[in-house]
């Protein structure tokens, strides 16, 4: 009889205790974001197989060793989840922007630009009916002013949506730069830990969580480098490589386009971003400028149509050839200041002398081009917003599926942990019993053997 039994029991006690601790850690982090459940890897110690001169191996193993503490994590699912989260972040951002643009237009309703255009047209009819009535003329000037203000108000709201987007992007980039540095630092710590033979599971979790937030913010591909470190690439250029991180910057181009871009601080080259930053760039460079241009096309239509009729009209004082609308210094549609100041200069008549003729005004009232141009704009906006909302819904479903799959591999399940707890506890109890058994056997051998006739 050797003392092997004691050693085996001891190794088991140690291994089970470690497993119990890890189970405790899992339960403690059941709700921690980014935490991956951990498992103690146990391996049976093989017995000696080499025969010696005075000893022959018994063939019995030498107990158990807890080799490693493994993170349960599927790298492929992680990459996939990062991509899907980048996509949902981008789509949700776009959806939000388009929703705000819809609010700016305020259609369909009695207060939108459509109603203002209709009122403006009706005003021309009233002037056509009473060309010499100053009240009708004043009313038309007021309605034209309301229309002009309405267009300007929508445009201002659109501009502020863009400005807010730029501010958001700047805040986001500050955050991204800080997170990139954090990923690089964690990479360094992980490398040191692994070199020292430790299992830096919790550092890995933190690092992966930070990398995932980078993916949501700017997209990008994550690649493990084989030494436990993680590189983050944006369109082929490394944002994080090992323990170093690069910096991004927001740059606004020259007017009039003011193209917004995200560039590398080191060489001013554009960075290939997606995710939320990508959506914010799209907002600033595509969506808002596009709807401002659409609005401008409505203004141009109003300007051109009304002026084309109006230049041929004669004012009450017999003058003619006057524009009704002009473009002001900032490029907005505005009333001709002369007409705005003196409503009698509205050219309603088709001849210089016949002031009671309102045929020119009635002709302008019959123009409906601007209204239909405007309706087209609103429909395009509606369709684009609806599409964006549907894409968000679909992407949301995809994202939650991927999250579930990821959780399925790395999430903590309380029932499972409880079962493990029972298993390890029973194993611990049994190892203790084993210790007692060996102890008792030795007691018999040492204290009670060879005492015959004593």
């Amino acid at each position, binding site marked *: 009889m050797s003392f092997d039994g004691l050693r085996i029991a001891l190794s088991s006690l140690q291994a089970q205790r470690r497993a119990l601790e890890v189970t405790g850690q899992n339960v403690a982090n059941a709700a921690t974001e980014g935490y991956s459940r951990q498992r103690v890897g146990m391996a049976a110690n093989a017995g000696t197989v080499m025969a010696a001169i005075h000893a022959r191996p018994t063939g019995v193993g030498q107990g158990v060793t807890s080799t490693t503490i493994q993170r349960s994590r599927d790298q492929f699912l992680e990459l996939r989840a990062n991509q899907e989260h980048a996509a949902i972040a981008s789509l949700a951002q776009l959806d939000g922007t388009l929703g705000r643009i819809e609010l700016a237009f305020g259609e369909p309703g009695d207060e939108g630009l459509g109603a203002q255009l209709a009122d403006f047209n009706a005003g021309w009819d009233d002037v056509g009916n009473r060309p010499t009535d100053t009240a009708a003329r004043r009313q038309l000037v007021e309605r034209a002013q309301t229309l002009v203000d309405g267009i300007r108000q929508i445009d201002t709201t659109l501009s502020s949506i863009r400005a807010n987007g730029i501010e958001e992007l700047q805040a986001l980039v500050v955050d991204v730069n800080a997170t990139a540095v954090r990923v690089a630092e964690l990479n360094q710590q992980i490398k040191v830990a692994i070199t020292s033979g430790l299992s830096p599971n919790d550092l890995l979790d933190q690092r992966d969580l930070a990398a995932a937030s980078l993916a949501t913010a700017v997209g990008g591909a994550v690649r493990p480098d084989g030494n436990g470190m993680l590189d983050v690439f944006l369109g082929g250029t490394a944002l994080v490589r090992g323990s170093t991180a690069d910096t991004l910057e927001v740059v606004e181009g020259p007017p009039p386009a003011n193209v917004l871009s995200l560039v590398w601080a080191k060489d001013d080259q554009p960075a290939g971003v997606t995710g939320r930053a990508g959506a914010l760039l799209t907002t600033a460079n595509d969506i808002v400028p596009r709807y401002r241009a659409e609005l401008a096309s409505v203004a141009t239509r109003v300007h051109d149509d009304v002026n084309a009729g109006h230049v041929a009209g004669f004012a009450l004082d017999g003058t003619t050839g006057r524009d009704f609308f002009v473009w002001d210094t900032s490029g907005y549609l505005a009333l001709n200041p002369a007409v705005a100041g003196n409503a009698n200069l509205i050219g309603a008549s088709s001849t210089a002398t016949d002031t009671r003729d309102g045929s020119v005004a009635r002709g302008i009232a019959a123009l409906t081009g601007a209204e239909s141009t405007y309706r087209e704009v609103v429909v395009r906006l509606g*369709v684009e917003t609806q599409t964006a909302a549907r894409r968000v819904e679909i992407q949301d479903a995809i994202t939650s599926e991927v999250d579930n799959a990821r959780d399925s591999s790395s999430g903590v*399940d*309380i029932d499972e942990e409880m079962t493990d707890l029972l298993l390890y506890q029973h194993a611990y109890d049994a190892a203790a019993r084993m210790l007692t058994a060996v102890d008792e056997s030795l007691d018999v051998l040492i204290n009670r053997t060879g005492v015959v006739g004593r």
Partner: protein
Amino acid sequence: MSMVAQRVTQRTLNARVERNLQRNVTHLSKLQEQLSSGRLISRPSDSPTGTVSAMRLRSEIRRSEQHHRNADDGIGWLGTADSALTGALDAVRRVRELALRGANASASAPDRAALAAEAGQLREHLLSLANTTYLNQPIFAGTANVNQAFAADGTYQGNAGAIGRTVGPGVTVQVNVTGADAFGSLFTVLANIENHFSVNTTALNTTDLTQLDQAFLAIQDSLAVVGARYHQVEAMADRSEVTRLDASNRLAEVESIDLPKTIMDLQLQEVAYQAALGASARVLQPSLLDFLK
């Protein structure tokens, strides 16, 4: 431990329940928004095609209202012209009687003077009828910038300009007749008659009478034209009212909620939400911990 099927953890369950409840609440809030605003479409993305219909119908309603206003104004013009011309016919008829009495050889000089005086008054009356205004605009002056269609001596100061009213999509109706058309040389004839009572009684029942009858016919023609246009404008006014009502109804169909249906939907959604809450409470509650001692 092998992984055959997908592991479902408490977090998975939580996330799924959260998502489903969120979706339920979103539906509920959408329905509540519809009920409280009474509108099915409150932004273009709710229904892009519905939005364009709603906008088109709103514009149609506004336009019909304006056409109706234009027609009302036209009816004012034509109605005023109608009563002025009817009055003019009566007056001309009376002048004709006076002329015939003046031409009678038995009439004495004082009689003729009295007839001449009455003819003069009728001339003034006719002049004021020809200068009738509607909202301060002389209705028989065409489009000319004058305050009276005829001067005190009976000369026409207006022009041949037409005054139109847009009473329907692409429909413009002329709502005036010019003084030249309606009254022509009436005032010259009247002046002649007034003079001829004392100097040339034979002319009274020959040339004067012929000319007066021509003037009468001209007024009658104008009256017929005014009457026809009056009916046209009135019909167009009715039609724009019908168009407006029709467009309003269609707008309500496109844009407003179906109240009973929406209330039913809301109740169904509430039941669904409560069921989801109940199910969630049951699914999330138990764990192995409840059964370990």
